[in-house]
């Protein structure tokens, strides 16, 4: 079944979203690795439809929050409401209490709302006025943002970006995909027709099995060397954090599981290296000004091209 899970998810998503097989795989890897994803792309590249389709495949509860500059943390996490009958304050859960949360245009929300969400992402619980409530399991946030916006946005700071397991850049489709998209009736993007690929119960078991995938000492050394190289890289002012490397190993485990293996190989690490590390490293300004670097993801690729994997 493991060998088929990825293909079955991709097949279902393909019925609604064309040409996003790689992104669908990354969402699945992130879910199995118990992480959150930041989908970055200009408007109209199917970010929201992809997230909604993915949730339907997984058979889990899905909610969407459209972030706006006038939002308050309680709009998302919930708050205490006075119950006239019992004459007591009851906690009313906000939309964050779901399995898969689409945080649409996260960079439109003010920092207080962003940090409330990011706390939920990190702790898998929310605390309101001393009252702590655990979030449902699994809990995954798929946040979206448009990197081209400059007005009325609050960019996520580095420490908050670090909470995202992956950042997935959703560019424009290639010409063949664009043609296929135009040929298909644009109204035919009904996510209701997507069939459930796995039940919530099965998903929970799979996630447990992923944690048992073996990461050999050589692979751990390889990860540590990558981290060291990134921190010593002169074109970067901020290298990979320890959390980034832990996240990378979790993703590699999920990939190995989806490939039907009980152990991680260096290829598993490399397959998601750009998505896991690209948004966490920061280019050094002098490297940018002198033209030595202009893309952090390219620097990550070059580090991986330089560090010898265990062979």
């Amino acid at each position, binding site marked *: 079944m493991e060998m088929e899970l990825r293909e079955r998810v991709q097949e279902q998503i393909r019925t609604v979203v064309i040409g996003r097989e790689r992104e669908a795989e990354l969402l699945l890897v992130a879910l199995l690795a118990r992480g959150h994803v930041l989908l970055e792309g200009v408007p109209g590249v199917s970010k929201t439809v992809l997230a909604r389709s993915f949730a339907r495949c997984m058979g889990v509860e899905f909610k969407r929050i459209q972030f706006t500059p006038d939002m308050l943390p309680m709009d998302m996490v919930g708050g205490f409401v006075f119950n006239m009958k019992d004459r007591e304050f009851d906690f009313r859960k906000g939309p964050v209490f779901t399995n898969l949360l689409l945080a649409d245009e996260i960079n439109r929300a003010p920092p207080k709302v962003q940090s409330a969400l990011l706390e939920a992402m990190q702790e898998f619980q929310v605390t309101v006025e001393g009252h702590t409530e655990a979030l449902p399991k699994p809990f995954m946030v798929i946040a979206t943002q448009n990197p081209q916006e400059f007005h009325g946005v609050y960019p996520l700071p580095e420490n908050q970006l670090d909470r995202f397991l992956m950042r997935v850049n959703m560019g424009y489709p290639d010409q063949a995909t664009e043609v296929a998209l135009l040929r298909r009736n644009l109204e035919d993007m009904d996510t209701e027709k997507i069939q459930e690929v796995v039940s919530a119960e099965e998903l929970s078991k799979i996630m447990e099995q992923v944690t048992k995938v*073996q990461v*050999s000492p*050589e*692979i751990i050394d390889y990860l540590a060397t990558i981290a060291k190289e990134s921190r010593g890289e002169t074109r970067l002012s901020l290298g990979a954090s320890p959390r980034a490397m832990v996240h990378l190993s979790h993703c590699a485990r999920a990939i190995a599981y989806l490939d039907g*293996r*009980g*152990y*991680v*190989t*260096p*290829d598993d690490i*490399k397959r998601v290296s750009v998505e896991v590390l690209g948004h966490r490293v920061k280019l050094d300004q002098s490297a940018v000004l002198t033209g030595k670097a202009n893309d952090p993801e390219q620097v990550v690729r070059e580090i*991986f*091209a*330089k*560090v*010898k*994997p*265990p*062979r």
Partner: protein
Amino acid sequence: MVSMPWLPAGSTWEEAFEQLKEARVKADWVKVDGALSAYEAYRYGGSPATVAGKDDVVALAHVIQKRVIGNGAKGKGTRAD
């Protein structure tokens, strides 16, 4: 890997084999891929070592050597890693 000096130091066996497949290097790729899987299971998964597919990997190394020398890489990549 020594037989493929054009590859970056950070390349894996899978990446090396992918390049060779793209270059249409003749080999029994089913057996070579099988040998790689068995090797990885041993190397990273603690499975028992096996010699299955060894001859096909050696044959592949010879093909690469001829190509490298034929391309004028004088003395480089003349033995399998």
